[in-house]
């Protein structure tokens, strides 16, 4: 049976999956809006970094077989396919990979060649998420992206021809200067290229980025109303193209929901491997160091990369379950926190305003663009 991306069964079963997140921080150029753990001009350390990743895998506590592996960045496509395959093999040896495991990798369109794609498919990667962002040359330039719209579309075909099981595209909307027509063209062109999965992200101004500094200095910031218009437009177009929205920013054909992300939103456990990576196991969220040299030194000297951790248990875990679950179209099981929300004045106001809907034992955010208003109310709930 092919699963609908927004099905309740899928959302609920994902919580039992185990995943691994592998971070590859290297970029040719850091995008002005990006605040992830990334480095530019440090390609000299790629070899050492690969060694550190393998060593981290070796030093992880035991874990049952993995249901999903996610290579994020940074730019994972900067790694040679052989290196990616080596990491997959190490994960397989250390933990085992479950039948139907999803192995996903983020890539820049300009890095995709037929040979590269073929090697990855051969090595077990079955899902690629392309950082296309826009099909408007001007918008691409504003976002500091180096590929052309043509390259972006060509990379989708290359992956298809190589037999990649699932192809996803990331788009960014609401860049100042982007017209509604430009956005509409980007979404249409992307959907026509024959993808399985679409992520549409509102451009977000993070303070410690070049964009954040520019906005503080007076540059135009994204307009939330414009972004709301564009979000609605994309959701409608994706729907018409047969993609089902299953989270605030994610749409997929049946059978193509990202399993790694489903697992995270369902409070599933995931291992953290690499610079700045976060993990969640046994009720503890861990975070790795974010500075590359520190990371390398610590892993190489056997200290380990974990910089800090937070225990998530009891009421805090319940609120976190709701916080993550409300982002899904399938909603979240009410549970003690949901019941409390429904009984609170803040929760009643959300229900009256049609933001929150209760379907049986599930809480669903009917106006996904207001999800954070719901989450803030959830986080202010106190245990009885």
């Amino acid at each position, binding site marked *: 049976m092919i699963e609908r991306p927004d099905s309740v069964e899928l959302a609920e079963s994902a919580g039992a999956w185990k995943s691994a997140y592998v971070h590859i921080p290297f970029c040719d150029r850091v995008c002005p809006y990006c605040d992830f753990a990334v480095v530019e001009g440090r390609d000299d350390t790629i070899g050492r970094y690969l060694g550190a990743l393998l060593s981290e895998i070796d030093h992880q506590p035991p874990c049952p077989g993995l249901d999903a592996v996610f290579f994020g960045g940074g730019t994972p496509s900067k790694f040679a396919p052989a290196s990616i395959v080596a990491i997959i093999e190490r994960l397989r040896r250390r933990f085992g990979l479950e039948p139907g495991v999803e192995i996903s990798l983020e890539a820049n369109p300009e890095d995709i060649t037929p040979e590269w794609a073929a090697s990855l498919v051969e090595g077990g990667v079955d899902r690629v998420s392309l950082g296309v962002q826009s099909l408007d040359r001007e918008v691409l330039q504003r976002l500091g992206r180096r590929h052309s719209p043509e390259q972006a579309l060509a990379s989708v075909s290359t992956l298809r021809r190589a037999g990649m099981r699932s192809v996803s595209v990331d788009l960014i909307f609401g860049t100042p200067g982007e017209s509604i027509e430009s956005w509409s063209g980007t979404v249409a062109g992307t959907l026509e290229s024959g993808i399985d999965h679409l992520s549409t992200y509102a451009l977000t101004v993070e303070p410690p980025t070049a964009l954040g500094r520019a906005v503080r200095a007076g540059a135009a910031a994204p307009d939330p109303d414009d972004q709301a218009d564009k979000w609605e437009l994309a959701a409608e177009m994706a729907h018409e193209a047969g993609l089902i929205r299953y989270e605030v920013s994610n749409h997929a054909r049946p059978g193509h929901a990202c399993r790694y992300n489903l697992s995270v939103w369902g409070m599933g456990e995931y291992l953290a491997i690499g610079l700045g990576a*976060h993990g969640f196991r046994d009720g503890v969220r861990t975070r790795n160091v974010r500075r590359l040299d520190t990371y390398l030194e610590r892993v190489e000297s056997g200290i380990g990369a974990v910089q800090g951790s937070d225990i998530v248990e009891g009421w805090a875990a319940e609120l976190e379950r709701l916080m993550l679950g409300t982002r899904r179209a399938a909603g979240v099981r009410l549970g003690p926190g949901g019941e409390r929300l429904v009984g609170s004045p803040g929760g009643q106001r959300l229900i009256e305003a049609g933001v929150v809907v209760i379907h049986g034992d599930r809480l669903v955010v009917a106006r996904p663009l207001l999800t954070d208003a719901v989450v803030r109310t959830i986080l202010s709930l106190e245990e009885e």
Partner: protein
Amino acid sequence: MSVTDPSRIRNFSIIAHIDHGKSTLADRLLERTGAISERDMREQVLDTMDIERERGITIKANNVRLKYRTADGAEYALNLIDTPGHVDFSYEVSRSLAACEGALLLADAAQGVQAQTLANAYMAIEAGLEVIPALNKIDLPAAEPERVAGELVGILGGDPDEVLRLSAKTGEGVEALFARLIRDVPPPQGDPNAPLRALVFDSYFDAYRGVVCYVRVKDGRMSAGERLRFMATGEEHNANEVGFLTPRAVPVSVMGPGEVGYLITGVKEIDRIKVGDTITSASHPATVPLPGYDEPKPMVFSGLFPTDGDDFERLREALDKLRLNDASLQYEPESSRALGFGFRCGFLGLLHMEIVRERLEREYNLDLVATAPSVAYRVVLPDGSMVEIHSPQDLPNPGDLAEVQEPFLRVMIIAPSEYIGSIMELVTNARGEMVNMTYLSPERVELIYQIPLAEVVFGFFDNLKSRTRGYGSLDYEVSGYRKSDLVKVDILLNAVPVDAFSAVVHRDKAYEYGKKLVEKLRELIPRQLFDVPIQAAIGARIIARETVRARRKDVLAKCYGGDITRKKKLLEKQKEGKKRMKLVGSVEVPPEAFVAALKVDD
């Protein structure tokens, strides 16, 4: 211990316009007399409250006994009684002056005579004090000592050469000042053998000692351990401790005529000590009390409400404590449909209001919502009776009243004559009428107006400052009530009237006021989950309308494994911000919105 010979005592105040350097001069006097070593010298020792030091103004009168030895070896006790410089606190100046025989009238040698210089000088003269004129800041390049000395002599009479020339900053002229104080301030007169009469000219609440009274002995002696009677309240208390402030508290066994110091009785309850009361001996009481003071009358009223309704009792306790040091603060419980339970508070002026609010928040850790300030209106009812209202929401409907009267001020403005046109325009906008205009010199003019207090409350002083490039100064006194054509403007949020936003406005200005206020509220009220109409109305008639459009996007684009902790922290921080909001009906309103009326002219 014997008491000080009154001929060796000098009691004086320094009176000045704000920022003319009074506190700095006080510091210099303390330093020169060794009352405080340079090592201990904090800037402006007499300003003991943090807010005073931050704002550079003196709020509470304070006193200090300085020991001064002349060149020929004679030792004098100089009691310096500090006074506040802001017009809001002029009644405290009069209290301080009642404890003195002399006043040093200080004027900035660059800025010259200002409105409060004049007002304070007249107050000192009326109180029968010897006034010694002095110029401060003679070290400034812009100082014009000859011109300003001429202005001072114009007020007080005398010889311009007799005007002291000081620099509190460098200390220049301070020795000459000591000599003049000893020569010109009359030593206190008082009968050492008469029954005790001592004036309570201020009080202060100390968490460990209870109420500390600042007292000036006029006749007789006040001894530690003695049973005292407070003539106005009729209460009797023991003098647990009497002493001087040097500025450290130094207990003594007895205080004689002319001496100034403190008294601790062990009284802890607010309101049991009345500033202005006369203390006498319980065993040999005097029959006639000393002249008291007029009770200061609040001019400006505002509702103070705790953001968290559970803090109501804490707010009451905090106000009770503040009132101990501030007899002018008045309050009574008030309930608002929008804001819940709080207090309607009366203040001497806007600065007083701001200071009280800041102290409540800072020293008592309260989170408050304040409503826009208002004045006390008098309403004549159809049957001819009169009621005073302190809150706009209490104004009856037009059909239920005969007339409304509002308080007017007699406002004195001193400014360079080139600004007359601009000042007149300002005053006209404020519904003022000119009473008199006098040229103090060819370049400087004194203007007297009658202006409704309500207009002065809303940024008049700031406007005057900006229109005169800072050269205009102002002083005022209440001149009585007059009939005015006033209406109540109500604000409706989401079609529901919000009492805390109501204001009494002159009919000619109501439309513009309503329009500006709803525009301001539209800026201040954040977007909600639904459209929020904001309307201004006079009675049932809507005079202005704006809409806060519903929030459409309130979600972070990404929430993946690496973002969860960070996202949660971010949302928790935003949640704290939301807590500040007052829920009015179903609309979240930030506390700033309740004083938006203050900003309608921005």
